[in-house]
């Protein structure tokens, strides 16, 4: 009598269900993960391409840039340059995971452990996701956004909507609150707000304006106070969220245009935590699937063949080529994340003297899941690396830090994986993952609403690195379109 969950590469829904239950058993009872309820959807490769091109979301408003993404992905896929992802998972409740129909049964098991439990646990518990995203509301909000943009296209024409979206997308990275907590979008509030805006538009509409001779614009309708709590008419400067600032204070935008900015801004905010936790998120999911698959094998639930197939795929996912390798394209977040988490387990279970010196708080503690769950909940990439990257892993990955001055003809090796260099390498790597320094720091510092209507922005250069000139000019034009008047961008230094 065999306990194997499956013996064939083909999958069917009974097998999926059986396997899911076995994985769930391990995830909840052995690893004690806390997850959102799961919803698992099987999709075809074409639908996977669809999902790719709408930022991985199941529904999304229409914009040409998504069509461009689709055309590119499709060409790459058809030509065989890139394989499709095995899964896509959405930070929502219920947590939706897409499985590709072409996966073998082993891959489906791997992907369920990875997405439905690994990512899911991370979404549910990490403080950034907790504070900044609303898993229950996101799908409703997207549905609202899609309908709203479609209605705008119908009412105001595709070109106008496209122009606003283009400008808003260009400022997406500057459309997040980095420190303040953003208001949560929910279905009721979104609907109520839309109603208020529609009412305002109706009110502000006056049949008389139609009788003006052509070329004379109706005077701007008197602004009524936005009933939102965070709007008090008084500008708070400086403001780091440029999209928010434009939405609230731009003298030239119409109400629906403000709403479009708001939609783009809300999405940017929703994705912001994912940008800050790439290493941890993928590391967490990879560690979870690795642990679960091995436990399944230890308990005789999957065959050796399945284990080998899993290991083959796992090792290619966590493969890290060296910097001088043709395949090198930055540090692989799967490799770094999984490496660090597997290393934490090793430190908990079999610490060396070095580990005891570096990590006295948990070396040899045994309960690695406790340490990991604490890390998953309370850190982001930057702080996680700064706290948990061990000398052993730096040696294993043979990390070294380079110093690059724009005026130097050469890079200088500033530290390598040795006794004197560990801390410097670790700090440099942590900085590299700090979104705050990787993104340009641009703020609104002044806006003259009374007279010249000039908007003043300031780029605060970190370590003297300026903005890229060509793209800066293009985006300034976009900001001017949204602001309607002159915009200047000055460079300041942060030291």
């Amino acid at each position, binding site marked *: 009598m065999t306990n194997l969950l499956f013996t064939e590469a083909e999958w069917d829904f009974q097998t999926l269900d059986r396997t*899911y239950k076995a994985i769930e058993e391990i995830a909840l009872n052995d690893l004690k993960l806390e997850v959102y*309820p*799961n*919803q*698992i*959807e*099987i999709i*075809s490769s074409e*639908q996977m391409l669809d999902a790719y*091109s*709408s930022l991985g979301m199941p529904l999304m408003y*229409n914009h*040409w840039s*998504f*069509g*461009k993404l689709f*055309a590119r992905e*499709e*060409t790459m896929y*058809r030509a065989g340059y890139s394989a499709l992802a095995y899964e896509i998972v959405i930070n929502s409740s*219920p947590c939706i995971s897409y499985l590709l129909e072409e996966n073998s049964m082993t891959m489906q098991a791997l992907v369920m452990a990875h997405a439905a439990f690994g990512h899911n646990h991370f979404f549910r518990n990490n403080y950034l996701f907790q504070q900044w995203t609303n898993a229950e509301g996101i799908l409703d909000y997207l549905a609202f956004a899609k309908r709203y943009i479609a209605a705008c296209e119908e009412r105001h024409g*595709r070109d106008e909507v496209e122009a606003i979206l283009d400008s808003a997308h*260009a400022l*997406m*990275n500057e459309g997040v609150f980095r420190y303040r907590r953003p208001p949560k979008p929910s279905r009721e509030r979104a609907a109520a707000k839309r109603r208020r805006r529609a009412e305002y538009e109706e009110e502000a509409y006056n049949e008389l304006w139609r009788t003006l001779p052509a070329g004379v614009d109706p005077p701007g309708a008197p602004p009524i106070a936005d009933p939102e709590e965070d709007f008090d008419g008084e500008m708070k400067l400086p403001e780091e969220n440029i999209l928010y600032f434009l939405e609230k204070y731009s003298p030239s935008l119409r109400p629906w245009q403000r709403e479009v900015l708001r939609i783009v801004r809300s999405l940017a905010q929703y994705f912001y935590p994912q940008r800050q936790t790439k290493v941890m998120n993928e590391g967490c999911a990879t560690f979870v699937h690795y642990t679960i698959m091995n436990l399944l094998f230890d308990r005789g639930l999957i065959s050796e063949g399945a284990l080998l197939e899993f290991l083959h795929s796992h090792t290619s996912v966590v493969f890290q080529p*060296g*910097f*001088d*390798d043709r395949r*090198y394209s*930055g540090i692989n977040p799967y490799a770094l994340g999984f490496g660090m988490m597997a290393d934490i387990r090793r430190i908990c279970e079999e610490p060396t003297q070095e580990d005891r010196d570096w990590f006295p708080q948990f070396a040899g503690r045994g309960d690695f899941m406790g340490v990991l769950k604490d890390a998953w909940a309370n850190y982001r990439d930057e702080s996680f690396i700064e706290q948990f990257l061990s000398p052993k892993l730096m040696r294993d*990955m*043979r*990390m070294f830090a*380079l110093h*690059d*001055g*724009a005026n130097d003809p*050469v*890079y200088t*090796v*500033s530290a*390598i994986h040795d006794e004197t260099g560990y801390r410097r*390498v670790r700090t*440099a790597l942590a*900085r590299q993952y700090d979104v705050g320094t*990787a993104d*340009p720091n641009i703020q609104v510092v002044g806006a003259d609403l009374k007279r010249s209507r000039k908007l003043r922005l300031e780029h605060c250069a970190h*370590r*003297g*690195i*300026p*903005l*890229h*000139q*060509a*793209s800066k000019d*293009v*985006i300034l034009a*976009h900001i001017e379109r949204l602001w309607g008047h002159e915009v200047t961008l000055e460079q300041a230094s942060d030291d």
Partner: protein
Amino acid sequence: MTYFIDRRLNPKGKSLGNRQRFLRRARAQIREAVQKSLKDASVADIGKERKIKISSKGTTEPRFRLDPQSAGERDFVLPGNKEFMPGDEIKKPPAGAGQGGKQASDSGEGEDDFEFTLSQDEILDIFFEDLELPNLVRTTLKETPVKTWKRAGLTTAGSPTQINLLRTMRNSFGRRLALKRPRPEDIERLEAELAALQAEEPRDEETKNRILALRDALDKAIAKRRWVAFIDPIDVRFNSFVEQPVPTSQAVMFCLMDVSGSMGEREKDLAKRFYMLLHLFLKRRYEKVDVVFIRHTHDAQEVDEQEFFYSRQSGGTIVSTALDKMLEVQKERYNTADWNIYAAQASDGYTQSGDARRCVEMLNEDIMPLCQYYAYIEILDEREMEVFASEDSGAELWRAYRTVAEQWANFATKRISKPADIFPVFRELFKKAEA
């Protein structure tokens, strides 16, 4: 509670709206790319899916980004150290090359060109855009080919008229053999034997038993004949037919063109568009379309497409030589019983004096009786077009051909000076096809 949801049957093409928006956005560039790619394409290639490469200008999505190459300083970490010690210096790669993929895309100037595939419909839409072909024509162009029923083996279900007797009977025979169905002869033999015994008088014990046994055997045989039917439903086979597109017929298209010095790049390009359209039109009606290219100066040759459009030749102009050549090729390879013959001639309207009359004779007597359709287009420049505003005035060849057109309904003459003029010729063609 976990749900598994099978989304595979959900409608596809969710991003079609985005694709249309993207094509619209990049319209100008795509049009240019399509025209360019069709220019190098062969006449028969229009109407196929094709890869298009456009520069990413116009569809860039700008973001603020930092430019560490121009000023400032930074530190970064790389994996895979082999020999470096602190303080070592590494030469920077030349500007623009970046260090590995990630750095390059962060700081490199602009994105690569963008390549993707356009479908046949999208190509046609774009190609016909400046020809202003109305929708009606576009839809007729995409009409499905003629289909016919073809035999496709046997099935166990079908209508009685489709029964395949031979196969049904063979199955029936095999089954009867296997189940040992008594044949009529067997029963007759039993009955005869029984009758013979019954006729015997007086009967002894052995005969009586024999009669009983015979009766028993006879009853069994009759019963078995009843339950092993002669033809059982499981024997029945039907001929099966499936719909298949058929090559309705074949057509050959003769492209005749004057390549003397007066036909320049522009004229040839116009002619090529005309040929492409004609080919597309024929493709719609005929499964197999051959294209024959005949160029002429004072002498005609059959050439391949490359030579036809791109090589130059100097000399005088004698149009009738091309007609001669066409007749020769036709006699040799394309007899009228098997082939529909179409001809399209492009010229700037000049020919040696006196030659026009010979052309008219050849057309009237030899060529027009063979042809389904003969289109003559005269390519003028805009200035000439104004001079020859009326249909009646024109150079020698034009006036001569007008007389042919009066005689033959399937002979068309048109003057064109720009791409938009090509369409009216086709409107005539399609009108005829419709009738």
